[in-house]
């Protein structure tokens, strides 16, 4: 939690402190925010894809590879914990969720079928995001070159472009660009997506994450990561606690008792599931092979119900009388 806020502050306001952390930061360290200390990898990759095939395999290709490599390196270390702990857009969604919870308004979940269908969208977005810039310099399947106003196409519709600058009081991204049809369509799409982001994440926890192309891109490298979410299915009673608290609603975390690597493509490694699991050593996060955090029975009772270890009285009153 604290870490999440620090990361948020760093990625939104870092520029004030002249912090610059490179151009391969995964996501939504958005350069449209003037004070952002780094650049979202999605913008780099889109720019780099905007090259002719020839150069992609030549010198420019090297730049592409280098930035891909540094992106991958970050993921090798922290895996998708980026999403659970660092990404500013994730943090904003968590705040919206908190607000809704305070207001006592129920959240919604997808049913199994919609879940399965909708989760594909992020891959479609990822492909488009690479394909459109490529199509600006290369004719793909004999199509005419795409308009250059489609540069960094995902950014044009990404809610991060509009929201993150707002936190430094910059509203300049909150407009529709009437230069020509393409810019008009793209910038209006951007505003629509923003509205969906705000409304969606109010009713559905981590609404945007489910469609996030970054999440799709991460997942491609997830298996090779040092940070892993591991399950020991033998200790699992299928009680469903982990699924209940999972903000993205991953059912497999409770129902899959066969696989041990549990980072699914929608997982954001927030580890709430580990906190909610009452079985000793059933779920754990490990770095390389060292366990960092494990589910325990004691931990379950103290974390979720605030029962401390010696006495049977609640250690903290979490019951406010009405």
């Amino acid at each position, binding site marked *: 939690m604290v870490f999440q806020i620090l990361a948020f502050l760093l990625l939104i306001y870092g520029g004030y402190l002249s912090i610059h952390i490179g151009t391969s930061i995964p996501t939504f360290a958005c350069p449209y925010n003037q004070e952002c200390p780094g650049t979202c990898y999605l913008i780099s990759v889109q720019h780099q894809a905007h090259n002719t095939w020839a150069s992609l395999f030549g010198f420019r290709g090297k730049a592409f590879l280098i930035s891909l490599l540094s992106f991958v390196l970050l993921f090798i270390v922290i895996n998708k914990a980026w999403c659970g702990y660092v990404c500013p857009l994730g943090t904003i969604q968590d705040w919206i969720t908190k607000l809704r*919870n305070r207001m*006592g308004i*129920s*959240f919604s979940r997808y*049913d*199994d079928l919609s879940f399965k269908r909708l989760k594909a969208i992020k891959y479609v977005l990822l492909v488009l995001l690479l394909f459109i810039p490529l199509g600006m310099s290369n004719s793909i399947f004999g199509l005419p070159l795409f308009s250059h106003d489609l540069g960094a196409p995902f950014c044009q519709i990404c809610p991060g472009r509009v929201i993150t600058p707002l936190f430094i009081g910059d509203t300049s991204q909150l407009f529709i660009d009437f230069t020509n049809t393409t810019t008009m369509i793209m910038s209006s799409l951007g505003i629509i997506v923003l509205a969906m982001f705000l409304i969606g994440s109010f009713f559905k926890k981590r609404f945007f994450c489910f469609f996030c192309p970054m999440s799709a891109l991460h997942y491609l490298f997830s298996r090779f990561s040092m940070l892993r979410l591991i399950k020991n299915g*033998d*200790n699992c*009673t*299928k*009680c*469903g*606690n*982990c699924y*209940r*608290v999972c903000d993205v609603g991953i059912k497999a975390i*409770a*129902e899959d*008792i066969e696989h041990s690597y549990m980072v699914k493509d929608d997982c954001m490694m927030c580890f*709430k599931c580990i906190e*909610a699991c*009452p079985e000793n050593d059933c779920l754990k996060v490990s770095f390389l092979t060292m366990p960092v955090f494990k589910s325990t*029975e004691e931990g*379950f*009772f103290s974390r*979720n*119900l605030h*029962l401390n270890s010696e006495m*049977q009285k*609640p250690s903290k009153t*979490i*019951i*406010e*009388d*009405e």
Partner: protein
Amino acid sequence: MNKNENKRYERLSAKSKGQLIIESENVLQEMQQKFENTIPGMEYFYDVAKQYAGGQLKNPERKKYIATNCIQVPIELIYAANALPIRICSGAYSMSQAGAGLLPAKSCSLVNATLGTIYTNSFPLAQKPLTIITPTTCDQKKKLSEIPSGIDIPFYTLEMPPSKDSEEAQEYWYRSVKKLKGELERITGNRITRSKLKKAIIKVAQAQRAFRHFHQLRKEEAVIRGTDAILIANTFFYDNIDTWTSHLVSLNAELEMRKSRDHNGSESRYPRILLTGSPSIFPNLKLPIMIEKMGGSIVADEFCSSNRLLYDTVAVDEWNMYDMVPALSDRYLKACTCPCFTPNNDRERKILAYIKDFKVDGVVYQSFSGCQLYELESLRISAVLEKENVPMLYVETDYSPDDKGQLATRTEAFIESIKNNL
């Protein structure tokens, strides 16, 4: 009822109640005396069991109470409605005789005894319950409410899905529980508020925590007799929950001490037995007592009336009604290993896990005659155990003491055969 019938009913009721007391006292005596080395912390639980049999449970606040017919009833809701849940599934032979006349000949003892309890008005409290909640777990229980017997207490049928894994089944159950919440509010006249439900969930979680600690303690060594463990769980419904919990906490502390004390030396190894199948409910502790008399040590059981009773937990993400009620429903559905669900491979997974964790040498499977679900599942379980090379004794029995001799011979032979292979 005419006058004659009335008289006959009065006589039956009085006789059954009298027999229940005698029967219970015999069992308690057997438990306390036939074995040496009783744990002082057990006194309380014996006491509660005695009061239960005599129909003298304490209810100092004179709360309204709701009778439950199965552990699938979410008791947190009942507490939150400011009432007491009292489980009335009965283990009394006297009651099964009283109920047998009302049901078809092949009904199971537990169902007979439960109906007998209701029919003869032998509730553990002086008053009558407001309502009797019966989950649709087995066909016989489900039909209890429709047996013409002149019972004037309303039944409430809590609808359960026949499966637990599918989305549809889970949705069905959420709605069932939500409906129960409304019904309870109507019946008790008390509103179930957010903070009351939260308190109730935490209150039960405290009991669960103590119970899980107890469960863990039994894993390493046989710190307590399995028969006592079953009785402890049985008494959960018969006293104020906080009182019960605090007694279990102090018993746990006692057991911790015994554990460290007994650990040095004396490696007398008793065959470690896992009991599963139709639940043994006080005073029907015939089989567990028999096993332990014959030198077996019941280290764990997979009974809905004991080990399964308080094990599964509630995890709430947002402490609002909309999340608390489904979270509560989950506790009663998802990890449940009741044979009423199909598929039910979680049951064999649990049994295998217990065998590993509790270092079990052999399994005793109890089926009450007429209890189809447990009879049916015994086939699958015995096949699984055979594959794992774990010996299993299948026992079909009921509440009557008639088969004690035959049971003794069979359990003795089973335990001896395990001993020979230790």
